[in-house]
């Protein structure tokens, strides 16, 4: 094992895949000389040259359209969209085109594209640079969604994404870029659709997404000293979603908490709760969704703190239902 930051792990994954497969391309705003505004593509231009690492104009729709066009011709583009909020700028290509290419051509085309983006909630970036809305893409058949929470998961999931045959939305979290973790030295691919039990427990199941996995782990540690045993599940990919692991856990704990940085209505938690209710209603005693309120993200730091899910809010909610 070696210690890498979340950003370094993704950078390594891209570089290794570019060495392995010359069809892998990187394109996006500032991905070249600057190495991305978050430095995730740092060093790639120097190693792979300007043909394969392409700075684009500030044109999100063209970035995804060009990636999709190259993908159907046999390339494996990695397209960076600087902030998740900007996915709305390329919604036409990302929702109307890319996920439907294989389906509406009767399987004649495949569009294996990885769209990397990140969300920045917690960094005081305001209402247009903080949004996290992966459930929109859970409602868009044909695109997979990965939400890694650790450096090892980020690296392993990225490798699976770029080697697959489908479009993947790879949502990183800016608040995690500097976080460190152990990453295997040997090549490791993490399959999609397999939740990871980040901490086993018996009293309550917390299904946490992206940044909140770390918060949930901290909350579990605090609660363990009070004699409450928390199981923390990280779905790692939202499409495909590992419902079985959640059901198995809930059947044991009877209490389900979902936690994410989305706004609460129609968020990831809403879907998880619905699935569990359909298939394990009799086992359930309590359900709580922890998410942002249905309010745009505020800028001012104390308001942002009040707005976001935190470990303290998790601790309090869990205490209330155990």
């Amino acid at each position, binding site marked *: 094992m070696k210690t890498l930051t979340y950003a370094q792990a993704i950078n390594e994954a891209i570089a290794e895949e570019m060495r392995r497969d010359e069809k892998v391309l990187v394109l996006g705003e500032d991905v070249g000389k600057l190495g991305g505004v978050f430095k995730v593509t740092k060093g790639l231009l120097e190693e792979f040259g300007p043909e394969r690492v392409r700075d684009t104009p500030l044109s999100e729709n063209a970035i995804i359209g060009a990636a999709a066009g190259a993908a159907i011709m046999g390339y494996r583009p990695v397209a960076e969209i600087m902030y998740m909020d900007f996915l709305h700028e390329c919604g036409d290509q990302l929702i109307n085109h890319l996920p439907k290419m294989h389906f*509406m051509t009767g399987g004649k085309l495949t569009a294996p594209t990885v769209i990397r983006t990140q969300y920045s909630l917690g960094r005081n970036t305001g209402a247009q640079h903080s949004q996290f809305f992966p459930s929109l893409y859970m409602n868009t058949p044909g695109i997979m969604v990965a939400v890694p929470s650790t450096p090892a998961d980020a690296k392993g999931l990225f490798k699976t994404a770029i080697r697959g045959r489908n479009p993947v939305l790879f949502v990183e979290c800016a608040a995690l870029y500097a976080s460190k973790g152990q990453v295997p030295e040997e090549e490791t691919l993490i399959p999609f659709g397999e939740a990871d039990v980040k901490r086993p427990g018996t009293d309550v199941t917390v299904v946490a997404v992206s940044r909140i996995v770390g918060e949930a782990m901290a909350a579990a540690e605090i609660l363990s000293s009070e004699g409450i045993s928390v199981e923390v599940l990280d779905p790692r990919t939202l499409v495909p979603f590992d419902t079985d692991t959640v059901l198995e856990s809930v059947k044991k704990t009877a209490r389900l908490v979902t936690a994410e940085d989305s706004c609460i209505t129609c968020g990831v938690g809403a879907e998880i709760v619905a699935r569990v209710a359909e298939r394990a209603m009799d086992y359930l005693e309590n359900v709580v969704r922890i998410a942002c309120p249905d309010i745009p993200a505020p800028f001012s730091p104390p308001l942002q703190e009040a707005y976001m899910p935190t470990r303290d809010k998790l601790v309090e909610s869990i205490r209330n239902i155990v």
Partner: protein
Amino acid sequence: MLEEKVVELFKAGFIPGLAHPYMGQEAVAAGVSAALEKGDYVVSNHRGHGHSVARGVPEEAILSELMGKDAGMCLGLGGSMHSTDLEAGVVFSTAIVGGGIPLAAGVGLALKLDHKPNCVVCFFGDGATNTGAFHEGVNLAAVWKLPVVFVCENNQYAVSVPVSKSTLASLVERGQAYGIPGQSVDGMSVLDVHAAASVAVSRAKRGEGPTFLECKTYRYTGHGAYDTGLDYRTQQEIDEWKARDPIRQFEQRLGAEKLVTSEEIENTRAATRARVDNAVKFAQDRPYPSYELLTRFVWA
């Protein structure tokens, strides 16, 4: 002829959903396609049957797709606005106006990186030039010098709104604004279209980047097969354009230059009509796709 049949079949209820006829615009697809070789691609749009015909996609596959039958070019999963036949070089057609333009840039990027001696043509209408996708896609292709030919079929109306009400500049200036050559041609003349397309295709293949071609043309029907177009256009205007019908014009030219006889033209018409009739019968006799197809291609 295929398109006249499409309108007939649509009205008779054999073609569900939407269908956007190409009558009046034939010189554009034909003139451009004649400038292409095997290995060149086209990215098409909602009014795409004509592009498929011009690229040589079998009529059986086109009509089966329009009717939602299993022998369609997309197995009946796409419909009239979606055409893919890689063998014929029809890579994709989109139903979102302007959406094909960034995609074509991506196809061009792949051709360039593969060092292929080929190009991609992107067909779109005048309406598309007002979308953001047009500006983003043309600019990207221009700045990366991609082997793309942007063919704007200016048929004068975006559904019902005339170009004069949506654009102050001339369309051809829009391509020029991104630093690429732009040319406006008579889209009712297959020879003029072919000449301009040949120059643009050669330029793309030489690695000099994209060209923007505006082909001034007209659609005889309304926007869709369901629409006469008479709510916003006069019969007189339609008749004036029909007087310059691209097929008849070309036939007259060929006749005048004694390259074909009127008998040969008649024979060609009859043969085409028979081929289309057979294709209609073929498509009508095919079954609908099996329910198993509903799930087979969601994921690759």
